């Protein structure tokens, strides 16, 4: 991939995920393309490997973690939680979304701060509001809510008015 690279059409995110899936079948369990957005569901055990590989120039050059957020899909859902990784390449200008699905009784996921350092605060926010625990995170503290807060405010079973003592209830 040296001389002919200039003439080749660069691989789209869906092609990248397809190549990734054919190379490592375990790494991508589900792959959808809708509304021009590519989403890949990755098992929790491989998320760091997938992210490290996608950051390399051969596999998409996703050098920018645009967002990392947690989702509570509902108390009755199984798996209940998901963590979304929105990847972006400032060089090739394409995007990719990775998802990790987590059940309620085991909300641990490996940290990707070793891949993108910006994941540090994003993972702290996800821990703070949704309660996902990122194993290996260097400084997993609350970032938005007060330090003495109990619970995670964006979980669906958290009351809207909270438990705070200032409320009139």
């Amino acid at each position, binding site marked *: 991939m040296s001389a002919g690279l200039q003439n080749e059409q660069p691989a789209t995110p869906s092609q990248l995920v397809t190549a990734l899936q054919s190379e490592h079948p375990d790494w991508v369990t589900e792959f959808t393309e809708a509304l021009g957005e590519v989403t890949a569901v990755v098992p929790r055990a491989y998320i760091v490997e997938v992210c490290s590989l996608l950051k390399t120039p051969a596999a998409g050059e996703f050098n920018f973690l645009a967002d990392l957020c947690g989702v509570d899909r509902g108390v009755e859902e199984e798996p209940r939680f998901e963590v979304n990784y929105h990847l972006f390449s400032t060089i090739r200008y394409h995007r990719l979304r990775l998802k990790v699905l987590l059940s309620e009784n085991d909300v641990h996921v490996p940290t990707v701060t070793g891949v993108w350092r910006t994941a540090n605060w994003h993972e702290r926010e996800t821990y703070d509001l949704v309660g996902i625990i990122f194993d290996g995170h260097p400084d997993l503290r609350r970032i938005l*809510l007060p330090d003495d807060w109990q619970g995670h405010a964006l979980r669906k079973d*958290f009351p809207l*008015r909270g*438990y705070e*003592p*200032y409320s009139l209830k």
Partner: protein
Amino acid sequence: MGIENIIGEALPEVLTTRLDSLINWARKSSLWPATFGLACCAIEMMNATSSRNDLARFGAEVFRASPRQADVMIVSGRVSRKMAPVLRRIYDQMPEPKWVISMGACATSGGVFDNYAIVQGVDKIVPVDVYIPGCPPRPEMLIHAVMMLQDKVMKDSVRDHKDIPEAEARHALTPGTLPVTDGSTLGPATAESRPYTIASRHERRRSS
């Protein structure tokens, strides 16, 4: 202007008046607010000091960045749960006499933010002297509130404004004095370590 001539002819050298009225007149004529802009109401607060509205006409234009130099705290905006201890500490750091203006619907009652993150009224944290409705209030309303506060200052007595440091002990009552729902997070252990207080003497003063 020749006013010296008029005063010299018309008035004696010694005037008698109540000490309270003299001190209150001096106090109300230079109310220095603490800079405490919290949200969009702060834009209107800044506008109140601008040339069109000119809060300086009422002596309240000198916004001080240090609470040690401020007389009145204008809480302009919604107070988040995380900001509440900071606000209380700044209030505690202001020397007597001190007053609080709650500016806007959010500072007064929480406004539209009826949720876990926003304190439902700043009067849960500090005693408030004047409430301003509006979302946000116009600068004229803030000026009106300052004038109402000036009227209130004129009714005060010097005896009611004493700095009592021991009364502001750090382990005084907490906001947990309000009704707390079941499963509340504020246990007795955290209540002891709150860095701010509810000073009950201000509420006593207000009732007089």
